[in-house]
């Protein structure tokens, strides 16, 4: 199972708890995890990535294992710890000050 965490507003939108467990078919990539997430929670379509291009929204970040993976290609493999379910794939809203 792949563990995914969402920012507050997307948890509220999806009506889910802080961490989600997803069945994701191999290979475990950004695109595969997001596709599984959107299949289970259709209301999240368009809120994390563009519905047509698959491009990450500008103020969304993808973190895992202490790394910022936001700029990795969609089809790049996620770290082994994410694929094994020992570390979460973190979807994060960028910081905003003011």
């Amino acid at each position: 199972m792949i563990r995914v965490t969402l920012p507050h507003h997307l948890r509220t939108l999806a009506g889910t708890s802080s961490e989600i467990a997803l069945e994701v078919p191999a290979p475990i990539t950004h695109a595969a995890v997001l596709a599984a997430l959107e299949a289970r929670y259709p209301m999240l379509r368009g809120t994390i990535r563009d519905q047509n291009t698959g491009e990450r929204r500008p103020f969304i970040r993808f973190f895992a294992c202490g790394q910022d993976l936001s700029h990795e290609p969609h089809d790049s493999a996620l770290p082994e710890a994410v694929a094994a379910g020992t570390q979460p794939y973190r979807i994060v809203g960028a910081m905003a000050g003011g």
Partner: protein
Amino acid sequence: MSKVRVLVGTRKGAFILTSNEKRKRWSVSGPHFAGWEMYHLKGSPVDPNRIYASQSSGWFGQVMQRSDDGGQTWTAVGNKFDYVGDPGTHQWFDGSQRPWAFKRVWRVEPSLTDADTVYAGIEDAALFKSTDAGQTWEELPGLRAVKGHLWQPGAGGMCLHTIVQDPTNPQRLYVAISAAGAFRTDDGGATWRPINIGLNSGSELPDPSAEVGHCVHSIALHPTRPDVLFMQKHWDVMRSTDAGDSWHEVSGDLPSDFGFPIAVHAHEPGTVYVVPIKSDSEHYPPEGKLRVYRSRGGGGEWEALTDGLPQKDCYVNVLRSAMSVDTFDPCGIYFGTTGGQVYGSSNAGDKWSAIVRDLPPVLSVEAQIIP
């Protein structure tokens, strides 16, 4: 006993204000969609408990919501707004051309005749229609064919913010776009024509009477006189008596003819309301006095309505979608401010009181009667 429901969209969520016909005591529910920008919510005239809402965020983009129980519960519906074909480019501030791109939904306008049909006005400016209660959206691309390459954004974005339906002719719609102007279709949205003759934008445009490019802020009509339109333009309050074919200025003795919303009394087709704002450089009421102005003669001569409104040190704005009337008798009128107040009057504007005072900045106000 009938009730009135006032749907309030704010920068940080939506609020629903409810009262009875007396409109003295109000209940407030919310925030709904806390933390999200709620550009507009509006109920279906066919089924008042069917409410459509535009929910957006700089982080998470656009979500569309629908309620079938008067706002108690909500369902996320379709949020895919794809332009038909290659939308090409429009003019940018610096004169260059910039690709058309969806940014957000400014306006939801439920059909007057079918609860499952709803229009959406979006930025970058285009009109979309759903006939399945918001699940899917299809553009009416003929609008962008009306010199869309010459449209350019106003400071708030190139948004289609006003959609007005002719209650006597389902084929006729009006829309307004910042900063492109007003447009009309007489064939259900297939083809459109600009309706900007008589508008004068000498301060904003090199050609003051250009066919497109005017910064129209809002348009309103009374259902019994659908050919009479009232417009609050960037500067100037305007009236048309021929369905927008021509416009005439009716700013008259207003202290400022700059402003955003305009509304028509529910039972008096010639009674119209505006909220003068000092200028396009200073978005607050003249002299720090929050005044609604009412004309009983379709413009020209205006009276200040001040009872219950702050008459000193008031520097809020009232945005284009933030004023609405109910259809009780006497007519109720409501408006929200960027300071978070929602004011209401149960006697057509003679006296006002704050229903709520400390909401986030108010983006939209829509009143509806619940039988």
